[in-house]
């Protein structure tokens, strides 16, 4: 499988410096992330590896601009989200950034049950006042679901649903694809198929960050960022 050329000197697609996230539950403070400094170069296929509760999902949520940090600096797709723990991008700006530059894949697929496969894929375009059913169909074709365009999620297997979710994450031609435990709800055969798909997408130049606790899967990645108790403990390439 061809691998994308990664230019480590280029401006990272996503870059965190001293990043922290504290959740408050009443008087209690939960430090989900502490002093995370990490950068993802264009075309990199990286993995965030760690046990449950290590902070993988929190890191991906921050990189995906679905949540905001409480400390540190975060830059994604050329925009400064936060600097020195202070928010620099408005909520509308973060929505736009997410809409135009980021694709997100969840463990639980999160497809809308009332929509068909192709409509689920088209969904992100709605927020940009665009509609491109042909491209949505093309993406479904690419993930191997060209014959399932008008099927609803309830009529599909877990693997098929995850492929629809991948196609949905690609519809806005993102600069950064984030996948949080994308193979957590599928069997190993399906897992390998999905991983191969990520490889293909990366070979086309897409920057991918995948969070997993699956060491076997992580071993197949170009770079692994080990996270434990909210900190980066090791990086392997």
């Amino acid at each position: 499988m061809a691998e994308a050329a990664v230019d480590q000197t280029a401006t990272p697609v996503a870059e965190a410096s001293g990043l922290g996230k504290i959740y408050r539950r009443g008087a209690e403070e939960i430090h989900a992330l502490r002093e995370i400094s990490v950068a993802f170069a264009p075309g990199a296929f990286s993995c965030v590896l760690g046990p449950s509760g290590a902070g993988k999902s929190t890191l991906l949520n921050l990189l995906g601009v679905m949540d905001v940090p409480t400390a540190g600096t975060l830059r994604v797709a050329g925009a400064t989200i936060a600097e020195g723990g202070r928010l620099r991008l408005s909520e509308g700006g973060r929505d736009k950034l997410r809409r135009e530059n980021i694709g997100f894949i969840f463990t639980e697929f999160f497809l809308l049950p009332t929509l068909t496969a192709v409509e689920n894929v088209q969904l992100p375009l709605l927020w940009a006042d665009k509609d491109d059913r042909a491209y949505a169909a093309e993406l479904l074709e690419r993930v191997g679901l060209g014959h399932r365009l008008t099927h609803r999620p309830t009529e599909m297997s877990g693997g098929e649903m995850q492929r629809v979710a991948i196609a949905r994450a690609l519809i806005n031609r993102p600069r950064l694809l984030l996948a949080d435990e994308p193979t957590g709800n599928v069997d190993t055969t399906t897992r390998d198929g999905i991983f191969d798909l990520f490889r293909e997408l990366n070979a086309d130049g897409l920057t991918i960050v995948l969070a997993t606790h699956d060491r076997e899967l992580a071993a197949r990645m170009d770079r692994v960022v080990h996270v434990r108790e909210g900190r980066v403990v090791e990086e392997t390439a």
Partner: protein
Amino acid sequence: MSFWRLALRNITQRKVRTALTVLSIAVAVAVLYTLLSFNKGYAASLQQQLQRMGVHLLVVPPGCPYEAASLLLKGGKPPTYLREAVVEEIAATPGVQIAAPGFMSAIMHDDRTDIYYGMDQRTVALKNWWTLKPGGRWFTDGQTDGVVLGSDAAVTELVINEQTDLFTPGSELWVPELNRPLKILGILEPTGTQDDGFFYVPMAVAQRIFAQPGKVTTVAIRLDDPAQAGVIGAQLEKLDGVEVITMSELLGTQQRMMESAKLLVFAIVFIAIAISAIGVLNTVLMSVFERTRDIGVLRATGASKMHIFSLIWLETLLMTAIGGGIGLGLAVVGSGLLERAVVAGLASVKFLTMNEHSRLATFDPRIVVMTLLFVLGIGLVAGVYPAIRASRQEPIAALRTE
């Protein structure tokens, strides 16, 4: 994919619940539309009928005419009278086509009140919509015998006299005040008005019964040009001992009475609408709570808070618009049937529909538009709170919801 399509898919997710909500809106809208169109139709028919009666001015003795009418209907005597000679003075006024004198007074019995109306051929000419049952005829001017019964009066007399057959022209009616019978010349077809309850006698007979020779109680006037009612009314006011009422004043009184009744009915309808609006709010709010995760997905895929607000608002509007459309359809079709039922059940409104062009429930595009705008307004208001609740969802928190 469009916003509309997504909203439509969302509201059809829970079909039964949506259908019930839509039904409640449809019923409220149908009731609102029916009442509005009935109200308009009733007012229009009333106005049309009053205009058609061709009475443009009414001359009465000075004093409060409504108090006098009220006294009369309770069996009292009119407090004051007009000189009969004034009728000719009115008739001589330029622009007056017919001046028809009337003498109305009542006799109180233990269990009923008989209202006599003395008149002549000029009243018959004025009230040209009156028709007599077959075989009947009116008394001629100068005749000192004869009575024509209003349709209700005929039935009342029948019961009092314990007779089984309806009066027929030619039979007699005993009048104790005259100490002699009057020959029944005819029976009036039902008019649906108070005219049905009167005994119509020649003017001289009425004056004799009530011992008021040379007096009348009203003069009903038809003008050559109804537009001149104000000017001619002002001229007639100068005559000695008269008060002039224009039909527009009478209509105004009628309309004010209708307004009071309308206010009460509409208050009830608005309560029904408020209940259905709360139903809509509840349905949409429930759906927002149930779809918290889906809303998280929309936010995660780039939807802004405004997108979510608009989507939920659109869902509410769609529901109310569909309900409104169904309700209007039902009302337009159903009001015709309802009108027939109302007319069959209430004799008092029959006279409003005697003319084939008169309808109680009128189809008016303005009422359709008004009702639709109103229901959309309800949708807009009812949708605000659920839409705000939905748009406040943060993507991550929403996605974590079980």
